[in-house]
């Protein structure tokens, strides 16, 4: 039951082979059994989940079920959930219960999905390893020594370990794609503005985008169809209708033009990953796609541009955490300055503070032009480079990460080393493009991902290509052996 695809689960539920309550219980049991080790969940809500499952079973019995009714999922603990703690993996919000739900949470609930709980992440989504969580690091289900990636590491690990069939994630600089790659699952970061950001705690508002994480492109297509769409509460949400992604999955790839950006296949890339990707590209060619080399000359510059823009926006977005209206407040503040400084210094972890400081510095008087303005200009140049390649090819194929999951603790003392690992994912966020990571094999028992990058609003084609690839390969069906 736990290894079924979402479509198969829906069939099983519809045929009465099993109930949503049974399905939900099966995943709750696995969470109970494995979460202590994996630490993928911050909050589990078994009673509420079983109640929702019961309601779903009634809908199923009365033939009113949709494609996802009764199927469990988990939300990254960055999405506000009314009545359930939303911590963003920070001490700052350890006691925070949102009085509203994120649009994404509402939409998936309206689709009848059963909510199992909230998954772990890097604090305020700032990280690529899930080690900055106030609730401790998440372990990679494939290798307890390895990080699961971040920031949506809890979601990725939970899906990979079959603690949930699907989860939500957010991606500001690779936070869906990189953990998906490290944990051997499929995840898609949609076009900026495709999925509402209402109720999704902001890290860097012009880069953040929510998306689904699951075991296959087909599952992601089903989920994205429900998550996406215009939201009047989000000014940056785009007024465009949502295509029927699942219906596009089976289109043939004949004549599809794929571009390989040469800067993504340079010396930074682990040779074994390069080899696995060559295999994957061959598969795509077999399916009828044509491959050509393209160039994104500013690829490396996406790192500094991103590490100015994201911290700058974050420094402002995180100013609201001041110990006055909600969240952590220090004991016995002497005066207002003390209230602010101690509440914030106690409430935020080291990486969050580092980024707030960098962002504050980049925006401060005398440095704005050299840092922030410069980064915004580079952002335009990087975006234009992507647009040029999409005049030549339909999609880009690239590695998701330069190397497989690194060891826990190996990069925590050197933020720059950690940032450099994001080289292949950041440009996509700067340009607001849709991109996904698809399992493409393993290196020494650690999974790796193939990244597909599309032009704006081309999610349907990304999912189509990924699905065709997954029909021809079985990387996405590999399952880790778990230690209880």
């Amino acid at each position, binding site marked *: 039951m736990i290894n079924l695809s979402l479509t198969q689960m829906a069939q099983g539920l519809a045929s009465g082979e099993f109930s949503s309550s049974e399905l939900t219980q099966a995943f709750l049991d696995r969470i109970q059994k494995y979460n202590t080790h994996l630490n993928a969940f911050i909050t589990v809500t078994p009673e509420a989940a079983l109640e929702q499952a019961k309601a779903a079973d009634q809908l199923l019995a009365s033939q009113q079920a949709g494609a996802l009714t009764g199927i469990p999922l988990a939300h990254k603990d960055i999405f506000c959930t009314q009545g359930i703690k939303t911590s963003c993996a920070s001490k700052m919000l350890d006691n925070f*219960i949102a009085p509203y739900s994120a649009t994404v949470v509402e939409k998936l609930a309206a689709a009848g999905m059963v909510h199992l709980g909230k998954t772990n992440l890097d604090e305020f989504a700032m990280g690529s390893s899930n080690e900055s969580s106030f609730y401790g690091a998440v372990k990679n289900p494939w290798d307890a020594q390895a990080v699961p990636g971040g920031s949506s590491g809890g979601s990725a690990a939970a899906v990979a370990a079959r603690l949930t069939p699907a989860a939500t994630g957010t991606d500001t600089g690779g936070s869906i794609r990189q953990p998906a790659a490290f944990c051997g699952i499929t995840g898609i970061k949609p076009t900026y503005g495709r999925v509402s950001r209402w109720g999704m705690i902001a890290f860097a508002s012009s880069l953040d985008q929510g998306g689904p994480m699951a075991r296959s492109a087909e599952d992601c297509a089903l989920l994205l169809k429900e998550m996406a769409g215009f939201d009047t509460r989000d000014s940056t949400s785009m007024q465009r209708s949502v295509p029927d992604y699942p219906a596009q999955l089976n289109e043939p790839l004949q004549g599809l033009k794929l571009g390989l950006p040469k800067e993504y296949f340079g010396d930074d890339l682990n040779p074994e990953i390069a080899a696995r990707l060559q295999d994957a590209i061959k598969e795509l060619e077999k399916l009828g796609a044509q491959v050509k080399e393209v160039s994104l000359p500013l690829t490396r*510059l996406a790192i*500094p541009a991103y590490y100015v823009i994201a911290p700058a926006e974050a*420094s402002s977005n995180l100013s609201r955490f001041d110990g006055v*209206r909600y969240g952590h407040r220090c004991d016995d503040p002497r005066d207002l300055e003390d209230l602010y400084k101690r509440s914030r*210094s106690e409430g935020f972890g080291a990486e969050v503070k580092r980024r707030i400081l960098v962002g504050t510095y*980049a925006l401060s008087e005398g440095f704005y032009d050299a840092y922030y303005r410069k980064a915004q200009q580079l952002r335009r140049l990087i*975006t234009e480079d992507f647009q040029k390649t999409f005049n030549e090819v339909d999609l880009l194929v690239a590695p998701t990460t330069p190397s497989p999951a690194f060891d826990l603790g190996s990069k925590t003392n050197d933020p*720059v080393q950690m940032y450099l690992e994001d080289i292949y994912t950041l440009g996509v966020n700067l340009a607001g493009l849709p991109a996904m990571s698809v399992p493409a094999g393993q290196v020494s028992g650690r999974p790796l991902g193939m990244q597909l990058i599309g032009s704006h609003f081309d999610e349907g084609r990304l999912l189509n290509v990924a699905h065709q690839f997954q029909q021809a390969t079985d990387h996405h069906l590999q399952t880790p052996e778990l230690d209880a």
Partner: protein
Amino acid sequence: MTLEAEDLHKVAHLARLTLDPQVIDDYSQAIGNILELVDEMQAIDTQGVLPMAHPMDATQRLRSDEVTEEVDRDQLQNQAPATEQGLYLVPRVVE
């Protein structure tokens, strides 16, 4: 490259963060390294390039002027560390 302690303190104050003395050096070093990475941008000539604040070339949608939000003050203030008579309490603000 390290960030001068004086600059670090100034920035920390703007951000309302206190830095423990024993971590100042770490922060100076780490932030200095980040700034060094960031300085790679200066190699590219961006003169005349319009800064890009949003990834999508879209314009602001306007909301009609209607009261749509209901306020359940008690529920909202359940989240607050200190309130009295419906007010949020902070240490005395001196003007």
